[in-house]
């Protein structure tokens, strides 16, 4: 068991090296082949998307305006949520943007859209139009779209080898890839809906689609890609995540299965509206339960990193053992720590201490564990808040 300070410091260095936490991400890497691959594939997707938007804007401008505004707000909410759950060994925001853009442009316009059209047409020719309408989407999109989104993680790993180290990193970046895919797909769906009444009543024709996509989007691409990309990390292994082929394949198969069921739900339910609603709700609930389990499965390693990085601070009495447990624990542990205060003021101070301690952890990560001015200042902030002193800044 690690007990002495030098040993704790060494354990911290190892944790920082393994996790990649705090490293700066540089996108422009001309000597990285993945950089050029990413640029080319995203570039094609961007051209596709904006040329479609420009072509249809004259006819469906109102609906496009509504869809873009609505889904931008929707994306901001999901962005905030996904960023919030990544509060252990955090990934750089720039990397999240890179993931979002891949999902939005390369995975959709460059890859999945072409494959979906071709596969659906082949199904229609081979098995008949009725069969294709019944089962085509459910047996095309889960393969084409999940692979298109998930393959982006391979490029991201090549671009950020020092940052993407755990299955949880894959989980978070997968969620951002899925978010990008979902937002662009939703805008295109809204645009298609705008034309269903011959271009008249565009808002009325597309608003139903927008609301439906927002409601059902909770358990769609964001969730599928998060699970899929966690599976990709397990399948190939990373420095901080030993290779687990079985687990990886299972996590890759699960979102494909969920996606297939989701796209076939109207066919499975038949013409019974109650069965359809039951199946929709059931699929969403099962998907949410699975994603929560995958989150718990993957986040454990990140919590260990927080513990390793902050254990020397606890040994130096900067934070208490109970604070270390709260920092490296789950939401319940943090809540229990905050609620332990005797009065409102103590409970509020406990929350501030935790926030300051997380800020200290980020500074330590950015400094690769070195005792630099920024780290010392972050430590002094923990002490100041604990003492109840006002900020001089």
């Amino acid at each position: 068991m690690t007990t002495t300070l030098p040993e704790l410091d060494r354990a911290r260095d190892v944790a920082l090296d393994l996790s990649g936490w705090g490293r700066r991400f540089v996108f422009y890497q001309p000597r990285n082949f993945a950089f050029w691959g990413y640029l080319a594939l995203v570039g094609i997707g961007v051209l596709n998307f904006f040329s479609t938007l420009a072509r249809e804007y004259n006819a469906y401008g109102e609906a496009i305006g509504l869809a873009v505004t609505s889904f931008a707000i929707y994306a901001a909410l999901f962005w905030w949520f996904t960023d919030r759950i990544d509060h252990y060994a955090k990934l750089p925001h720039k990397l999240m943007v890179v993931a979002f853009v891949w999902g939005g442009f390369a995975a959709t316009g460059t890859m999945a859209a072409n494959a979906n059209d071709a596969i659906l047409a082949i199904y229609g020719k081979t098995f008949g139009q009725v069969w294709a309408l019944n089962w085509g989407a459910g047996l095309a999109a889960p393969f084409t779209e999940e692979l298109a989104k998930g393959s982006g993680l391979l490029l991201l790993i090549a671009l950020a080898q020092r940052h993407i180290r755990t299955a949880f990193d894959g989980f978070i970046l997968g969620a951002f890839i899925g978010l990008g895919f979902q937002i662009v797909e939703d805008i295109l769906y809204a645009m298609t809906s705008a034309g269903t009444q011959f271009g008249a009543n565009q808002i009325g024709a597309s608003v139903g689609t927008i609301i439906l996509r927002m409601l059902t989007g909770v358990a769609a691409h964001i969730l599928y890609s998060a699970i899929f990309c966690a599976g990709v990390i397990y399948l190939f292994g990373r420095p901080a995540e030993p290779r687990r082929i079985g687990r990886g394949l299972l996590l890759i198969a699960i979102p494909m299965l969920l996606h297939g069921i989701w796209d076939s739900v109207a066919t499975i339910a038949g013409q019974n509206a109650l069965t359809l609603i039951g199946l929709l709700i059931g699929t969403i609930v099962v998907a949410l339960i699975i994603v929560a389990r995958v989150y718990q499965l993957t986040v454990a390693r990140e919590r260990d990193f927080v513990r390793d990085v902050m254990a020397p601070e606890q040994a130096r009495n900067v934070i208490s053992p109970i604070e270390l447990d709260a920092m490296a624990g789950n939401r319940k542990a943090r809540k229990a720590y905050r609620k332990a205060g005797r009065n409102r003021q103590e409970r509020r101070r406990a929350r501030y201490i935790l926030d300051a301690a997380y800020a200290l952890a980020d500074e330590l990560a950015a400094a690769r564990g070195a005792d630099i001015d920024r780290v010392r200042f972050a430590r002094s902030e923990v002490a100041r808040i604990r003492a109840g002193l006002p900020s001089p800044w």
Partner: protein
Amino acid sequence: MPDPGAEVSSAASAPRFEPDEGWVPADERLFGLDRRTLRPTLAVFALVFIMSVVLPVINAAVPYHDIVRAGDVMELEGNVTFVPEAGWGITSGLREGHGPISGQYPAAATIEHGALKFTVRTGPFHGDAGQLLDQIEATTDALDQGRGVHITGAPATIVTAAGKEGATVRVTGPHTGGLIAAFVFGDRGVEAVATGPTDAGAEPSAAVLRMIGSISQSGQEKR
């Protein structure tokens, strides 16, 4: 309670050196590129090639023959039907009585015969046939921006075999010509577009007129 003043630092006073993100070890360089990034990128390119080239090529190579037999009726969303000409090929859409399990027929159907193409599309619409034709014209113009087919001549009245009055207008493009017909059944609009090469003659064929004349809506709309 921890004592904030009790910290004893044994950590380094400066971060350990780490090479830049763009640095590539000498033994990992290939034509100036990081060779470790080649395999994942080529794997993704292979997937893109399969999705965007191989699958569309396979689709183009697979023949499709779904020929209309005498007595076939095409059905669209909202119980809209039309009788396709025997011998034409169905490229999209479903026959009446052969709907998907969900019961929701598609909103459009297309049949083709050589270079002739006949598409019927339906959707909710509030107004009469003339207003629907105006709407179709406005949307088509906005989408084509002067590059595709455009409407020529004045709208005329067209009547189906069941006595439903609609509006029709001729369209011409760089190499195609044809007509658009519009009908409104209650709150449901129907657009029929027939196009073919301009050298096939300016007049719509009898087959096209028969198909337009067969457009009808039966019973209550399915929900």
